[in-house]
């Protein structure tokens, strides 16, 4: 809405554009009339003001917003998968000594912790956190949740480090439902000849999916014990791989528990159920000791070539 006369440079006299004072005043007046409580119903184009008054009224954030962390201590099994997945490496695990009849001591935990009567729970350096939500996404027990609280400003850097008991979810809010799901997709595979049978993986496994059996190799005329994995329970937390002193374990993608949801789309646009690819992969495996279950797979197609 620029006036034509202001750009007329034919005359020598300096001209100010028309309406520099009056027009803005008029527009602000219009807005005030449009947004005042009673008059706005009578005036055409009347509406509520856009501004929300922050400290007095708070905006309701959407449910998937990731603010302050909170951890369900009943569900967490201390598998340290979140710390491995974190891109900023800002999650630290703290060991806490517990009493004998504590409700946080559950059966699904590592045998080492049962002996020592301790639990491992995560602590977060919030000043370093990226709020990407990978920890909550990969958590095999759904223990990680994010609150909608975004006001985390503080006066010091040290106070942004939240210890494990400060991030604890209140006991009343947890539903105590035990879930175990492998969201990583990888599972440990054993090299039998390298295994020395030290049982450390058995002690460290947080789900108790490892059972020791007699292996094919002998030491002093006695069979060396090797771990046998129950892949239906395994969550792929890599705790056994980290602990292994002989580097005889490695992670590899074997199968999914239910593959009905997953599709494989190639560049031509043909879609295949991922289920069809699984049996091919299983037959190609040579390193695995115990083959995974293939009961859920329906009528595998004949392998090509």
């Amino acid at each position: 809405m620029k006036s034509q006369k202001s750009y007329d440079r034919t005359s020598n006299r300096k001209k100010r554009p028309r309406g520099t004072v009056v027009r803005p005043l008029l527009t602000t007046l219009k807005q005030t009339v449009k947004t005042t409580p009673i008059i706005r119903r009578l005036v055409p184009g009347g509406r509520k003001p856009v501004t929300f008054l922050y400290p007095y009224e708070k905006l309701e954030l959407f449910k998937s917003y990731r603010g302050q962390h909170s951890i369900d201590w009943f569900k967490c099994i201390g598998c340290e998968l979140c710390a491995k997945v974190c891109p900023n490496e800002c999650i630290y695990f703290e060991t806490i000594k517990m009493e004998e009849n504590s409700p946080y001591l559950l059966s699904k935990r590592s045998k080492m912790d049962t002996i020592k009567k301790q639990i491992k729970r995560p602590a977060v350096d919030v000043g370093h956190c990226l709020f990407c939500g990978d920890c909550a996404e990969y958590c095999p027990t759904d223990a990680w949740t994010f609150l909608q609280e975004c006001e985390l400003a503080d006066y010091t850097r040290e106070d942004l480090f939240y210890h494990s008991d400060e991030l604890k979810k209140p006991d009343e809010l947890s539903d105590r439902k035990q879930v175990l799901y492998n969201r990583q997709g990888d599972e440990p595979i054993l090299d039998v000849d390298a295994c020395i049978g030290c049982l450390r993986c058995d002690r460290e496994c947080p789900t108790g999916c490892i059972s020791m059996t007699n292996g094919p190799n002998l030491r002093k005329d006695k069979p060396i014990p090797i771990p046998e994995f129950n892949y239906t329970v395994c969550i792929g937390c890599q705790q056994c791989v980290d602990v292994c002193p002989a580097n005889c374990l490695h992670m590899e993608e074997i199968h999914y528990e239910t593959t009905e949801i997953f599709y494989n789309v190639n560049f031509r646009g043909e879609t295949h159920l991922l289920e069809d690819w699984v049996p091919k992969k299983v037959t190609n495996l040579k390193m695995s000791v115990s083959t995974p279950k293939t009961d859920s797979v329906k009528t595998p197609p004949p392998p090509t070539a």
Partner: protein
Amino acid sequence: MSNEKERIEQKNAITNIAGFESDKFIEWVAKNIEKPFKEGRARRLINNNLVQGFLNWARRNSLWPLHWGIMCCSIEMAATSDPRYDVERLGVIYRSTPRQCDVLLLNGPISYKLRPTVMRLYDQMPDPKWVIAMGECTICGGPYYDSYSIVKGSYTVIPTDIFIPGCPVRPEALMYGFLKLSQKIKSEKKGFVSTRKGRKVSAFKGHMAQFKGEVTYEVPEELR
């Protein structure tokens, strides 16, 4: 005649401040402005409890940050001043020169190349000044925590008062940070302010005490 000459010279000296060289200007300021404030009636008037309270009220209700964007958090800085989250209600008006500012709002990773600029901006600001570290990149380097070119935290360069975690921080969170800063200025007379966890820390601007070989903000027990 001589008295008249002196008077004219004095008049000229006052009127031609802009024409002074820098050394002469500093001398003039020390003689005519700083001296009456440091000793004399003006000093007593300012030290008065009522005047100090008024000055404190004025400071905490007009926090003018520098309009300076480093990286992506500056988009949120812009969003706070839009009509939806109208931050000018709280007296936060963005200024484009450090000489009119009270708050240095750092929003983004400070590279080693940018560090002298940050220090210079901090030095250019007039004295009651505060620093807000916004976002995790400024607080501790964030995703660039192991980078060769990023400063590991703004508090290693200049004393920082408020830390706002988030990636990026929401406009509400930034407004909450400004409100917290005003709270800190309010409790300057008390000497300490309590954090979210309930720990008591110093309320003076950029005050960092040294205990056990580490630089912390904790208040010594004598001051409490």
